């Protein structure tokens, strides 16, 4: 008898709780975030769930190195999350797959997302064929990191503003000690020659991004400048994996300038010895000629809404929440990732950070890469071309015409699509 009573109590309690759940259904938004961002973004979830009763956010962290393959495979297997983070250079690929829901309508209806508060170059990098597909989450661009003390020793009291000054400074720094170098350019990185080309107005691709344009006079000039740095031995011909400890080498004055992104502000602070902290600084990219801003790349990560999501309305609320100015500032404090909204830069810690100031200035002068799905492949071919030129000494003509030919092959399908499916 007692047992039956107990059973009844348990059963009724269960049905009661079942009723309660029924009254306020909970929608779960699945969110995939990459690398360290996936770790720290969890700390923003409680605030969201408090202000949005009825929505739960489930964060899954994915390592950057496997992210691209994993997103593609999850699309092929139809198990995409509702919201996911992705590098903005991947966006065109996922748009071609029709994996991403366009967000233009949501943005124009939202009170929280005035697009003019976002850095425009970064927003542009999220547009594919005039549709907006991602909301930028944090920015990534490249600026010059340099040793103030070594530049002073070489006779300069400010960073270079033009290419000419830059080359001159590198020459002087090199003269301090010929066993050292002025600049570090990892050979497996395509970013610097591309930035130099974009600064001169090179388009990289032509005919509606369906053919390579690396033989254009603008890119040739940029390529010559890049090569010249190696020819004068101002930079060592090393790949990234060959540099055992970047931070130690920077501290040892092995090189005094380095072009890199915001993640290295934190790394430099953390890994460089204390005596060096006041002696390094950041500066926007030098420009080809005086009087204009030197452009850099509009990189970064975006938040995208999966086209297959069944909870688009709730998923959008999560994206909107993460894009708010105060959440952007909070996320900066958690991760060190630079915010995409100018208003978030008012955050007292960020506004007072002298090393971040160069990024703030640079972000007003960023351009995006060609927005086509094939870009990453084209970039991997560019790396091969750079190595052919620097390591094997192949001529500019040879390397660039080879590159254009390779790129034309990669873009064959795109040309066919443009012709047959306008």
């Amino acid at each position: 008898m007692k047992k039956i009573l107990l059973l009844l109590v348990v059963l009724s309690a269960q049905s009661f709780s079942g009723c309660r759940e029924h009254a306020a259904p909970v929608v779960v938004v699945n969110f995939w975030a990459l690398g360290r961002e996936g770790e720290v973004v969890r700390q923003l979830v409680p605030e969201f769930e408090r202000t949005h009763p009825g929505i739960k956010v489930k964060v899954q962290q994915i390592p950057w190195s496997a992210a691209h393959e994993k997103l593609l495979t999850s699309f092929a297997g139809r198990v995409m999350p509702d919201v996911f983070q992705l590098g903005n250079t991947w966006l065109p690929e996922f748009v071609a797959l029709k994996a991403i829901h366009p967000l233009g309508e949501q943005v124009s209806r939202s009170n929280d997302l005035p697009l003019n508060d976002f850095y425009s170059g970064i927003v542009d990098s999220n547009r594919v064929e005039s549709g907006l597909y991602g909301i930028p989450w944090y920015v990534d661009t490249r600026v010059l990191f340099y040793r103030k003390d070594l530049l002073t020793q070489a006779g300069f009291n400010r960073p270079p503003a033009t290419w000419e000054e830059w080359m001159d400074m590198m020459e002087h720094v090199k003269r301090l000690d010929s066993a050292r170098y002025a600049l570090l350019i990892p050979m497996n990185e395509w970013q610097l020659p591309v930035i130099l080309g974009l600064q001169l107005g090179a388009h990289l691709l032509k005919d509606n991004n369906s053919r390579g344009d690396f033989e254009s006079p603008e890119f040739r000039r940029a390529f010559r400048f890049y090569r010249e740095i190696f020819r004068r031995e101002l930079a060592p011909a090393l790949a990234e994996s060959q540099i055992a400890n970047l931070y130690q080498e920077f501290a040892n004055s092995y090189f005094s300038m380095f072009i890199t992104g915001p993640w290295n502000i934190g790394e430099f602070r953390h890994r460089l010895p204390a005596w060096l902290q006041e002696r390094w600084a950041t500066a926007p990219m030098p420009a080809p000629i005086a009087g204009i801003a030197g452009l850099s790349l509009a990189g970064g990560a975006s938040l995208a809404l999966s086209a297959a999501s069944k909870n688009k309305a709730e998923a959008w609320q999560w994206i909107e929440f993460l894009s708010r100015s105060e959440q952007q500032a909070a996320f900066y404090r958690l991760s060190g990732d630079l915010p995409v909204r100018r208003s978030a830069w008012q955050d007292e810690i960020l506004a007072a950070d002298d090393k971040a100031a160069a990024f703030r200035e640079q972000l007003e002068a960023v351009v995006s890469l060609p927005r086509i799905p094939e870009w990453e492949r084209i970039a991997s071919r560019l790396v091969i071309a750079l190595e052919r030129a620097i390591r094997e000494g192949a001529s500019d003509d040879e390397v660039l015409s080879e590159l254009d030919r390779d790129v034309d092959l990669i873009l064959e399908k795109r040309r066919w699509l443009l012709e047959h499916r306008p």
Partner: protein
Amino acid sequence: MTRVSARFAWCKRRFGAGFWFALPALSLIALFFFVPVLTALALSFTDFDIYVLGDFSTLRFVGFGNYIRIMHDPLFWLALRNTFYFVLIGGSLSVVFSLAVALLVNHGLVRARGLFRTLLFLPVVTTLVAVAVVWRYLYHQRYGAFNWLLEQFGMDPIDWLGDIHWAMPAIILMAVWKNFGFNMIIFIAGLQSIPERLYEAARLDGAGSWAQFRYITLPLLFPTFLFVGVITMIGYFQLFAEPYLMTQGGPSNHTLSLGLLMFNEGFRWWNMGYASALAFVLFIIILMVTLIQAGVGKIVRTRP
């Protein structure tokens, strides 16, 4: 009812009991081997890529287009060269080394043979990922054990995985260490099947240990050799996980293997058509080399 039993009788007559026992295994092989292989063959004549994944109607039949492109792809030739380097140097080293170890372990003077066999076989059963992580530390330019050893002998440190000349030897060294145990076991089995009386007779005739090895062990071990050679070659041609885990194909593609190139094309860039064509090219290469090996084996065996 009678029709069914008549049909059953026909089946029984037509296919013996053996067929029905083999059927479950055969259907599994058909489903998970022949179907995918035939699909891949069909894919290799199309331009299945990222656009097709989004919209199937953009799929085009390209005939031998992928195969022609492969012949003009410098990365393919580079990967082919690297793979042959790995198979020729790594494969032969692996066979020679495992034979040497098998002879040692099998020697009459060695005690605790079972223990040695087990210990030497351990690398084979260890997960490759764990092995690769440990070896990456061993190869570390500053903190690695190999460079520490070099330093003890007053030699300059080597950037094992970052130097274009050392990266492939480093991969080979690790692969040989990881895989020799398997061949060693087969060689031991081969050695133990050689009758002791042959050696006794040779010793009576005054043959030294080299002569015994040259005129008894080697010829009688030949079938084992052939088997080990073919298996090793096929396995080594499929080089993928080692460079994927250790170098990602770098530095400057000097450890890019055909398997890794296939993976990059297929899963990194999602060019399934091109990747499938690469897979069949690799298959044909392996098939040809195996046939050559078997042919050489036949000639050697029938030699008077």
